[in-house]
């Protein structure tokens, strides 16, 4: 089993169709296959153990991914927002490496330990026009396909290990080969170092859906590209959708008439954002895709029918499904467990655990977190309702324990978000002498709106138990997020705790 098998099948099925386009450049499936073979030769000759890439999206990303697979080396896309100092420690961990670099970063990166640097253009130049090669990639399903350094919102970066069998199983479990029509095109705007970026390549190749890459995300460029390239499918993280909606609302005349399916994931979607998006794009199918790096991306989906039924319903229980992440893929099992590992029934909150062929649950040098029965504890808190819909309640480590009562920040944030003056908010636990932890909230107000601390406390008290009312509320101009839209909750918590004094 090897990722290359997906590309090999695509070549047999529809080799002359365009596989990927970036700006004015494009590769057909057969060209991508040939480039991967030539890149594999370069990789083998470089004497490296890993193939790293520090760059925005370009044709070099799929060529390096498949070239690495062909050469039997792990592909390691790195975050281009890391400082040179941070990169140094990551480079040491993957040395010796071949590093494909953005042209403007190449010179500085040559100082990195154990890295042989090649610019994007050099790499693509050597890979194109190479002689055809026998399909001699290794078939070991346990070989590492991708190493992804996790975003580090909870400590020093760990390298999640995604093996060929995980990524290929994900594709087999979620897609039909050649299922995309010839007119279909997927807009890839998540960075290459995000699991969704890797999954998008594997999925698009297997489905036969033309990929259109956006070098890096900006809402205007995303909308312009979607219109120009007649994009039919796209995946975005919630912050991206929020910014797209803001721009679309300013220029509603055009819309996105070709966009059939928009999926989102990678963080909690604020209810107002998805509601506005559905109103602005009534012809688009929305899908919430829940997954983690350690699960080779998507493990549960809330599909278009669920979105429409929830949005149209007056029944609060049905309407609430818009905040659910849906039901597990047929190839994945989900269980909710308590702190002792005991399974919990519907409606009971605990840790979300998953099992399936695509689940890796492993970090380089730290071994696997998957238990003897194949279950991976995600550290996400959540519950499953009577109909099997999964609801997330934040990270287990973010749960606030006040006087022995467990509270999910997400539940309180949802209520605060519903206040008309609140643009954004974060709820965290801060140390409290009496209760162990107390509820605190950082609030960003909408421009031109106001709300007092007492008013917001009253708002929460009227809607949730009084114990969930934030004892402390502070106002901020903005909240700290990482570049893919994950709230840096630890930073908010540290700030509020130190100010509480």
């Amino acid at each position: 089993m090897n990722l290359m098998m997906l590309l090999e099948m695509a070549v047999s099925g529809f080799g002359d169709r365009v596989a990927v386009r970036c700006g004015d450049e494009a590769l057909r499936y057969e060209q991508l296959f040939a480039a991967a073979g030539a890149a594999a030769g370069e990789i083998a000759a470089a004497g490296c153990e890993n193939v790293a890439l520090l760059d925005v999206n370009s044709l070099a990303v799929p060529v390096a991914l498949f070239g690495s697979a062909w050469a039997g080396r792990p592909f390691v896309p790195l975050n281009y927002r890391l400082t040179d100092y941070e990169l140094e420690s990551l480079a040491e961990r993957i040395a010796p490496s071949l590093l494909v670099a953005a042209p403007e970063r190449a010179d500085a990166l040559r100082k990195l330990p154990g890295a042989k640097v090649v610019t994007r253009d050099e790499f693509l130049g050597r890979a194109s026009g190479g002689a055809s090669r026998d399909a001699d990639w290794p078939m070991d399903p346990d070989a590492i396909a991708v190493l992804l350094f996790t975003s580090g919102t909870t400590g020093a970066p760990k390298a999640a290990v995604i093996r060929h069998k995980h990524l290929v199983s994900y594709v087999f479990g979620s897609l039909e080969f050649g299922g995309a029509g010839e007119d279909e095109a997927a807009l890839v705007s998540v960075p290459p170092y995000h699991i969704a970026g890797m999954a998008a390549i594997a999925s698009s190749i297997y489905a036969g859906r033309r990929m259109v890459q956006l070098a890096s995300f900006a809402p205007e460029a995303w909308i312009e590209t979607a219109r120009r390239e007649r994009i039919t499918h796209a995946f975005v993280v919630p912050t991206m959708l929020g910014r797209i909606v803001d721009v679309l609302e300013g220029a509603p005349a055009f819309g996105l008439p070709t966009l059939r399916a928009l999926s989102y994931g990678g963080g909690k979607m604020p209810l107002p954002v998805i509601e506005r998006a559905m109103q602005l794009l009534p012809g688009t199918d929305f899908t919430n895709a829940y997954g983690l790096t350690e699960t080779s991306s998507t493990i549960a989906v809330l599909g278009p029918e669920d979105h429409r039924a929830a949005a149209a319903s007056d029944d609060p229980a049905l309407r609430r499904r818009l905040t659910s992440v849906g039901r597990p893929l047929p190839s994945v099992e989900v269980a909710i467990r308590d702190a002792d590992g005991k399974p919990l029934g519907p409606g009971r909150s605990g840790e979300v655990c998953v099992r399936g062929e695509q689940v890796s649950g492993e970090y380089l040098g730290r071994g696997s977190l998957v238990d003897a029965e194949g279950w991976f504890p995600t550290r996400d808190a959540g519950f499953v309702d009577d109909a099997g819909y999964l609801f997330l309640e934040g990270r287990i480590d973010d749960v606030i324990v006040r006087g022995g009562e467990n509270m999910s920040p997400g539940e309180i944030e949802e209520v605060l978000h519903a206040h008309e003056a609140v643009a954004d908010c974060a709820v965290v636990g801060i140390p409290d002498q009496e209760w162990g932890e107390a509820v605190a909230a950082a609030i960003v107000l909408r421009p031109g709106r106001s709300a007092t601390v007492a008013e917001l406390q009253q708002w929460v008290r009227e809607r949730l138990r009084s114990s969930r009312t934030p004892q402390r509320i502070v106002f901020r101009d903005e909240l700290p997020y990482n570049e893919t839209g994950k709230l840096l909750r630890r930073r908010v918590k540290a700030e509020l705790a130190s100010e509480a004094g």
Partner: protein
Amino acid sequence: MARLKTGTRLKSAVCNTQVMVVSAPDADVELTCGGQPMIDAAASPPPGATVSPDAAKGTTLGKRYVNADGKLELLCIKPGEGSLAVGGQALVLKEAKPLPSSD
């Protein structure tokens, strides 16, 4: 007779068909294509054998084939003229259940 391993790539001894084992029963099975036992993808086919006329319905690229109890599942990665069978029972096309696009 052989025990099949998930992820293994096999080819037909008598046509262009190649498959990957998606799931396999925990038992020895006789897997054939075109009426002849399938062989390892790297092995050389025995000389002289041809597709048997009663096993010549063909395989289709990218389709999945399953046995009656669903324990054996193969994915066709190269199509050919022969058809797949296990223990003399023809494998059948697995119905695809479309999922919403998630990436």
